C-alpha cells in the first residue's frame, strides 16, 4: 500500500492486514505507556480543509502514539483561506518534508488528486473527502464489528472477516462518505449489507452497489440485523425537500425507543447499534439507543485510534509488500519491531 484513498479499491488481504495490525496497536493502547517509537523522526501532516475535531484528534493521537512529529494544518486561518490552491499547499508541505498527509477535504476526490499528481511525494491518507469515502471510518467500524462477531463465535478476531454478518446502514446515504466506504469494505469482508433510507437520500445508481436497499427500517429489523449503523442526518436537508420534516424522518427512519424495544421483542439480543458520530440525538437516534449497552459509539472512537495507527504504520514503515493471500498470513508487524519496542516502552 502506497496510499489509503478508498475502500473500494482495498483488497481483502490488505483490509485484513490493517485490521490485524490495529489489534496489535490496540494492545499498545491498553498499556500504561501508550507509545511506540516506530515513526520517530517521521512527519505526519493533518491537512484539514473541513472542520472535524474528532477525526483530527484521532489521527493526531495515532501519530503521536507512534512517535511521529505531527503538524496540524487547518484550512481556516491559514493561507488556504486566502486563496492558495491545493497544489501550492501540497508543494509547500512537500518542501517541508512531510512523510504522510492525512487529508480531510470537502471536495470528493481531493486525496486522489494529491496521490495522482506530482505535487507531493508523501503517503496520502483520506480522512474523508466530500461525499465520496472515509476509509478509516469504515475500517474502524469493521474492526468494531469483527470484535463483536468473533466474540459471539468464540474465535479470535485476528485473521477473521465478517462472513455472514448482517449489517444495516440507515440514513442519508446520498451525502454519506461513511456509507460508501462501509458498503465496499463490508462487501470485501463478506458481510451482508442493507441500506435503509428515504428514496430521496439514495443515489441514482445505488442498485448497482453490492448490497440490498430498503425504504423500511422496521421491515429490515424484522428480517434480522446483527449490526445497526445509524448515519448522521443534517436537519437542513429538510429545506431541500429531501424529507418533509425532521419529525417525519425520525418516525420512519430514526432509531427511536420503539425500535430499541423491538430488538428485544424480535429476539435480536446480540445486535449492536453503531454511529460514526457526531450524533443528532432525537433525530436519527434516540438517547436511550445511543446510551444503551448495545451501543458501540465509544468503542468506535477508541478503535479509531488503533485503526489510524495501523494505517500510518503500514504506509510509513516501508513495508510495501503485498501481503500473502492465504487466510493465515502472518501478522504484519515484524515481531522484533513491535514486541521489542513494546517491551521497552511499557515500563
Amino acid at each position, binding site marked *: 500500500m502506497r496510499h489509503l484513498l478508498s475502500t473500494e479499491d482495498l483488497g481483502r488481504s490488505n483490509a485484513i492486514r490493517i485490521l490485524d495490525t490495529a489489534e496489535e496497536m490496540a494492545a499498545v493502547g491498553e498499556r500504561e505507556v501508550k507509545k511506540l517509537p516506530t515513526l520517530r523522526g517521521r512527519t505526519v501532516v493533518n491537512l484539514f480543509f473541513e472542520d472535524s475535531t474528532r477525526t483530527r484528534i484521532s489521527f493526531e493521537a495515532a501519530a503521536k502514539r507512534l512517535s511521529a512529529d505531527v503538524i496540524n494544518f487547518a484550512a481556516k486561518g491559514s493561507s488556504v483561506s486566502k486563496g492558495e*490552491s491545493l497544489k501550492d499547499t501540497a508543494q509547500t508541505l512537500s518542501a517541508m518534508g512531510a512523510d504522510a498527509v492525512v487529508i480531510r477535504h470537502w*471536495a*470528493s*476526490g*481531493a486525496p*486522489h488528486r494529491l496521490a*495522482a499528481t506530482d505535487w507531493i511525494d508523501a503517503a496520502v491518507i483520506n480522512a474523508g473527502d466530500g461525499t*465520496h469515502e472515509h476509509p478509516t471510518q469504515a475500517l474502524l467500524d469493521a474492526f468494531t464489528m469483527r470484535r463483536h462477531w468473533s466474540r459471539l463465535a468464540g474465535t479470535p478476531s485476528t485473521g477473521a472477516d465478517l462472513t455472514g454478518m448482517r449489517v444495516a446502514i440507515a440514513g442519508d446515504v446520498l451525502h454519506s462518505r461513511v456509507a460508501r466506504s462501509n458498503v465496499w469494505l463490508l462487501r470485501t469482508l463478506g458481510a451482508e449489507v442493507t441500506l435503509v433510507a428515504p428514496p430521496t437520500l439514495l*443515489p441514482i*445508481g445505488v442498485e448497482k452497489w453490492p448490497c440490498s436497499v430498503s425504504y423500511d427500517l422496521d421491515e429490515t429489523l424484522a428480517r434480522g440485523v446483527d449490526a445497526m449503523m445509524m448515519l448522521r442526518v443534517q436537519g437542513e436537508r429538510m429545506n431541500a425537500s429531501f424529507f418533509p420534516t425532521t419529525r417525519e424522518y425520525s418516525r420512519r427512519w430514526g432509531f427511536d425507543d420503539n425500535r430499541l424495544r423491538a430488538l428485544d421483542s424480535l429476539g435480536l439480543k446480540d445486535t449492536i447499534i453503531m454511529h460514526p458520530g457526531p450524533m443528532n440525538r432525537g433525530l436519527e437516534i434516540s438517547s436511550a439507543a445511543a446510551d444503551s449497552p448495545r451501543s458501540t459509539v465509544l468503542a468506535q472512537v477508541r478503535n479509531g485510534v488503533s485503526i489510524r495507527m495501523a494505517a500510518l504504520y503500514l504506509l510509513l514503515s516501508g513495508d510495501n509488500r503485498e501481503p500473502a493471500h492465504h487466510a493465515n498470513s502472518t501478522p504484519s508487524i515484524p515481531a522484533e519491531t513491535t514486541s521489542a519496542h513494546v517491551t521497552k516502552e511499557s515500563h
Partner: protein
Amino acid sequence: MASQQQDAGTGAYLIRGAAILGGAPEDLLIRGGIIAGRGHNLPADGATVIEAAGLVALPGMVDIHTHLREPGREDAETVETGTRAAALGGYTAVHAMANSTPVADTAGVVEQVLTLGRTAGWVDVRPVGAVTVGLAGEQLAELGAMADSRARVRVFSDDGICVHDPVLMRRALEYVKAFDGVVAQHAQEPRLTAGAQMNEGEVSAVLGLTGWPAVAEESIIARDVLLAQHVGSRLHVCHVSTAGSVEIIRWAKSRGVNVTAEVTPHHLWLTDELARSYDPVYKVNPPLRTDADVQALRAALADGTIDVVGTDHAPHPSEHKECEWAQAAMGMTGLETALSVVQHTMIETGLMGWADFARVTSTAPAAIGRVEDQGRPLDAGEPANVTLVDPAARWTVDPSKMATMGRNSPFAGRELPGKVVATFFKGHPTVLDGKLNTPYRWLPETPAAAGTAAAGSN
C-alpha cells in the same frame, strides 16, 4: 467563373490528385480566392503544385460552437491563438460564443470580435450574439442591432447558461424570425443541475460527485422543440449529450419542427468512467455520459438526427484545471483534435464517409449560421475554402504543442488518426504542410462591401 475572379493576389495553387470528399482523385485549381477549376490533369499554369495523392479534399470546416475568450479572458485564449488553432484543425470559419467579458450582447461587442477575427485572418470569425443581456436570462439583448451590425449576427446563444425561462425562450425564438436568426440553446434545467459535477448515474454514485441528470437536458429540449413548432421558428440545440435527447430530436424532426442539433467530438467518444480519475481535464458541461449515450449520439450523427459536429472548444488556464474536481472549470479544447476524433469515431467505425463528414462539419453548420460563402461544394466557381486531410496519418496528442493556449485536451496522450495537411481560406493557404502559413489579409471594407466577404490578397 472568370468573371468572379477578383484580386488574384500572389496565390494560385494546383492541388493534384486529391480524393474530393473521399471520392476518385481529381485536381483542384485555386486562384483568385475561388476554385478556378476541377478535373483531371489540369495545367499548373504557374500555380504552386501541391501533390495530394492519398489526401482527401474537404470543404473548409465550420465550427458552430467555439469559445475564443476574447474580450476579457485573454489569459485563456485570444482570437489570434484560437483562430490559429482553428486553421490548424482544418477550419475556415468559427462561431465565437457570446460568453466573453463583456458579454457579446451589443452591436459594439460583436463588431469588436468581428474586427479581431479579421485582423487575425486565420478563419472567418462569426460572432454569436447573446440572447439575454449579460447572459442573465432576464431581458432580451438587442438582437436586431447585432443582426444589423457589421457582424451580421444570425446565431444567438446564452451558451454556458440555459435560457430557462419559457416565456423568454418563446420570445427569443419569435423575435429572431425577423432577421432569419436562430436561437442556439444550452439545454440545462438549472434547478435540476444545481452544483452538478458529472453525469448522474452509476459512476457519480460511487464517486460522490453531484449528478447532472440526463433529464435536465432532455426536458429543456422537449420544451424548446414544442416552442419552436408553436411559434414557427428555428432552434439549434447545442452539444446534445444523451440518448434521450436524440429520441426527442428525432421525434421533433419527424413532426417537421425546424430544429438542428449538434454533438461535440468528446461526447462521441469519452464516457463518465473517466471521472474515476478525478482529473478535471474530463470535467465538461454537459458532462461526459455513458457508453450507451455515446453509441446513440454516433448513430444519430450518422442518420442525420444530429446535424453537425460542434467543438465547444473551451480553453482554460491551467490553474483552473490543476485543482480539486469541484473547483475546476468545465470545458475541453477541441479545435485541433475534432477532425481526428470524428475520423476515429465515425469514419473508421464505418458509420460515415468523408462526404458525410463534409456535411456535418461544413455544409450543415454553415447553413445553420447562414455563412453563405462556406460549406459550399468543391466545384469550379465556388469560394476556395478547402481542407486537405491525410487520413492515413497517425499522431499523438500533446497539448503543449498546440496553437490554442488551452492545455485542457482530454485526448492528451492518445494516438489519433488523420492530420490536416493544408487549409485554404478564401483561396489563401493558412496552413501548409501541416504547419501554420500566413493569415489571409482582409481588404479594408468600403461601406458598399460592408458585411460581405471582401476579397483580399496576402
